[in-house]
């Protein structure tokens, strides 16, 4: 919950609602991008960017190396599977 997981913004799901599709290790989910969207700039600018996702919200933009490093750390401390499983959880 507190560590978050890095993913790549692959599509704009709903520009008006500030939702974008993020891919985390092959799992996709719509994520709120309010906190990383540049005010006034088109949401498309975010396409292809890496972001740290906490509980369904993109909280910061990171570069690709940082994203890979963070994934490696999560794997190393045994949290990657839990974070990914949580990210993949669908509403019951």
């Amino acid at each position, binding site marked *: 919950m507190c560590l978050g997981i890095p993913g790549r913004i692959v599509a704009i799901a709903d520009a008006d609602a500030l939702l974008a599709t993020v891919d985390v290790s092959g799992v996709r989910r719509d994520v*709120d991008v309010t906190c990383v969207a540049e005010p006034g700039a088109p949401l498309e600018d975010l396409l292809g960017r890496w972001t740290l996702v906490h509980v369904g919200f993109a909280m910061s933009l990171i570069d690709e190396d940082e994203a890979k*490093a963070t994934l490696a750390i999560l794997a190393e401390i045994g949290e990657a599977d839990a974070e990914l499983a949580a990210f993949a959880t669908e509403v019951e």
Partner: protein
Amino acid sequence: MTATPMTTPFHDRDTGQRLLARIGEKLHALGATERAPIRLMEVCGGHTHAIFRHGLAGVMPPGMEFLHGPGCPVCVLPMGRIDDCVAIAEDPRVILATFGDAMRVPGSRKSLLQAKADGADIRMVYSPLDALTLARRNPDREVVFFGLGFETTMPSTALTVLRAEREGIANFSLFCNHITITPTIKAVLDSPGMAVDGFIGPGHVSMVIGLRPYRFIAERYDRPLVVAGFEPLDVLQSVWMLLDQIGRGVALIENQYGRIVPEDGNPQAQAAIAEVFETRAFFEWRGLGSIDESGVAIRDRYARFDAERRFAVRSPTVADPDGCRCGDVLKGGIKPWQCGLFGGACTPETPVGALMVSSEGACAAHHQYGGLRKGAA
């Protein structure tokens, strides 16, 4: 499972060894010894987890001790709030949506897991947005999201309330248990016999709030704080930065995690928090008692999304169980193994105190990685 100190290429053993040697030199210059160590407190559960997982305490040169602070938001939830949450969940109109982490925290009657087994409609969700989805799909039910966490998760619940407002979703509300980091650190600093020489600052909380809110720690309490990343090398580098400050006789707020944490934090996240939440006069913590201005509540403007008003919760103060010493552990007064219940009555399978529930809690981390070995961390 045993700790594996820095063995993978990613963790760069050489740099780690070099940093450890430099930490050793600093400690020596400071005259720190095993008996009179420098004590650094991490206030983020993610750091607690990383320190145990990588056995960092074990590889530290003598004279340096980690204190594990109150940085796990699940661990400090008081029993009274869990009781309230169970009571809300037992209302037959309600679907309670919660993060999985909160399910096993003991209440005075039962945990959410037990309440679910007893028939309450409790759904584990990944995101507060999933609670909104539940509300849309179940218009005849009341969907309540159990919101908890420090500033890292606070923007997500604030933005969810704003989204509910925008979409006019009337059957959604938030049971707000968010807490803020700086009053917590202040409570540690104000506790009698406080023995913390410096703080390893939380990485992702700081990504939201920035560095400014920590200034009082340096200015009023003369203690350094270094915001740190979660890699072992990040933690070691932060330890070195703290020792360097102590050696120079200064107390500054520094940022080791600049690649994620901007100086001013995240303005959009701060705006969402300020719009939806206001500071509570006080909030009750498990093990620490009441801390002034340490929690937030929903502003009047968004009262209709406030589960506390919709369900008239009681929030009774419930004493921690006999023999439980979570508060002393949280303040750095004792080590987990010094609690009489540790490993006996209190284990991760049957937690008595909340510090045994989450893997980010000091007692659970110690139990998992340190075993019963005294001084393992």
